[in-house]
């Protein structure tokens, strides 16, 4: 059941300082818009959520070879995500031990060492100190060996998705991911060998909106018909059947699900095509046989039922707090970081099976751009919607409550067009912000 009481319990709707107010008698769920605008709230989020949760760093495929590195930000901290010369995956704070300069300045590359330009300290790819110019000037008890780059307190992965945690006492990643693991499995099962890869080319763009709005938006199927009217039109023009199913807002009846620990997903029968493996007219007639072949491989390897689960459902998965894996028109891995209450930085990649042929890869990327990304047919309108919401919050004192009560009272199932799965996020957010155990 998605709707269980929060730590904050019941409320008659009057504001007594609570930011997330759930009323199970009157079936209302409200969030105070203060949470989207107040700098204090963001500061508290940084400490209570981003410094405590598993935050996505990168994918193993991005650092295939010893010496490969990518510079990233994790919860706002500069980090080097790399594979050392021995082949171990590392995440090191990209901060010089001498006087704190950022050491590695390139976006990506392959190297034997990380070199700080300020005074010339150098580090091996495992972070250990390599050289300190003029080190004879240091006192005899100076611990040169202990001057390596500092690793992030915790680095763990699930099926090549690497996450860092700044809290040394955090539960392990696999426990943390809870039911989200099953949905990562559905993505990874697209590859015959279980190996997916991040495809070259990254989309990095800002949204002038609070980061939590993108959590909501990524899994909110209620907005599809209005926000994405032109995308639906494009699909229709291309011969894809996007007529709503009887009694539903969308062509298929999909669900919103609670995966535990604040993770959530949509789970929708596909209608919009899938590179693995559901043909739509947009792919062109000559792609039909190839899509069939991909599907046959799935059936052979996974059996009919599992193959259908992988190939015939679309899932927008949100891993608390700020990673989204959308397995829909294509697969996108997207994370987002607040820089101010009204501004976030979004980073998005495409993910695909390593075995894909050139034609399959091109089709996947083409399908990606029909919907996703800053130049896609849908995402720019999401940006518009979120920025409009943020603009509306200028009146948060006078119009203080956001309503998230769609589908409340349906204890058996929540539709993807309901808001039950959004409430999952907000309960987790609320419990972490009030310091209560999840």
């Amino acid at each position, binding site marked *: 059941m998605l709707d269980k009481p929060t730590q904050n319990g019941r409320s008659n709707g009057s504001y007594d300082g609570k930011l997330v107010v759930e009323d199970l008698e009157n079936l209302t769920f409200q969030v105070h818009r203060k949470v989207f605008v107040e700098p204090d709230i963001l500061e508290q989020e940084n400490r209570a959520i981003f410094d405590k949760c598993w935050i996505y760093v990168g994918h193993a495929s991005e650092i295939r070879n010893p010496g490969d590195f990518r510079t990233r930000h994790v919860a706002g901290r500069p980090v080097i995500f790399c594979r050392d010369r021995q082949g171990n995956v590392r995440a090191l704070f990209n901060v010089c031990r001498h006087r704190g300069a950022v050491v590695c300045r390139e976006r990506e590359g392959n190297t034997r060492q990380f070199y700080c330009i300020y005074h010339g300290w150098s580090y091996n790819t495992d972070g250990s100190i390599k050289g300190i110019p003029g080190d004879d000037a240091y006192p005899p008890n100076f611990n040169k060996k202990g001057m390596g780059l500092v690793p992030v307190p915790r680095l763990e992965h699930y099926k090549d998705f690497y996450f860092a945690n700044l809290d040394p006492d955090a539960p392990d990643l696999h426990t943390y991911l809870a039911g989200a693991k099953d949905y990562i499995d559905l993505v990874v099962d697209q590859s015959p060998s279980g190996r997916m890869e991040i495809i070259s080319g*990254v*989309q990095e763009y800002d949204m002038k909106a609070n980061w939590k709005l993108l959590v909501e938006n990524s899994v909110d199927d209620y907005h599809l018909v209005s*926000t994405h009217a032109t995308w639906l039109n494009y699909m229709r023009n291309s011969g894809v059947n996007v007529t709503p199913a009887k009694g539903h807002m969308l062509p298929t009846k999909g669900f919103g699900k609670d995966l535990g620990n604040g993770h959530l997903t949509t789970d929708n029968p596909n209608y919009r095509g899938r590179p693995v493996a559901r043909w739509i007219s947009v792919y062109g007639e000559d792609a039909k046989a190839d899509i069939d072949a991909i599907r046959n491989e799935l059936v052979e390897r996974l059996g009919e039922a599992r193959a259908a689960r992988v190939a015939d459902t679309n899932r927008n998965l949100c891993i608390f707090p700020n990673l989204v894996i959308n397995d829909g028109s294509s697969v996108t891995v997207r994370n987002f970081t607040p820089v101010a209450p009204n501004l976030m930085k979004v980073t998005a990649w495409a993910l695909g099976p390593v075995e894909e042929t050139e034609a399959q890869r*091109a089709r996947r990327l083409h399908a990606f*751009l029909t919907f996703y990304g*800053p130049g896609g047919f849908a995402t720019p309108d999401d940006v518009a919607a979120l920025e409009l919401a943020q*603009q509306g919050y200028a009146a948060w004192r006078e119009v203080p409550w956001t309503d998230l009560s769609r589908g409340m009272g349906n204890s058996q199932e929540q539709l993807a067009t309901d808001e039950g799965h959004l409430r999952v996020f907000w309960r987790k957010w609320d419990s972490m912000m009030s310091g209560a155990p999840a």
Partner: protein
Amino acid sequence: MTKPIDHASTVTRDEVEDFLYHEADLLDRWKLDDWLGLLTDDASYYVPPNDKPEGDHRFTLFTVADDIVRLRERIIRLKDPNCHAEFPPSRTRRMISNVRITGTEGDLILVSANFAIYRYRRNETVPRLFVGCYRHKFKLTDAGLKIHERRAILDAEELGAMGAVSFLL
């Protein structure tokens, strides 16, 4: 349609410049159907990702990689009031400079130019600035110069404050 001749020598930079200024004017005035008329029937339009400006859209995730079919759909979308990212439409002003004919490729004429596009949006007083270079491939047809391939390469390290690329670069 296409003349099997040595066109690079028959097309001058003046003509290419006039063409690009005309194109920019159509785009700034949102005369999008007229703009489509400047393209060949098999034209494509690319905006490479900021981190891989020299990438190939078949192996690299682009910001935009439209064949003519999707480009026509993009125009339909941009003219629709339900294209929320561009409603009210952005006001844009394009500065085109450093225009050069850089060579030929079969019967295609290669053209490069720099651009700076100021984009003003409703409720935003500060423009969003898109700076980069064009790498176009022109074809000389019976109906005059047409764009066969249009590539807008942004200079910035990331899209960042540019946000979405919801209008035509």
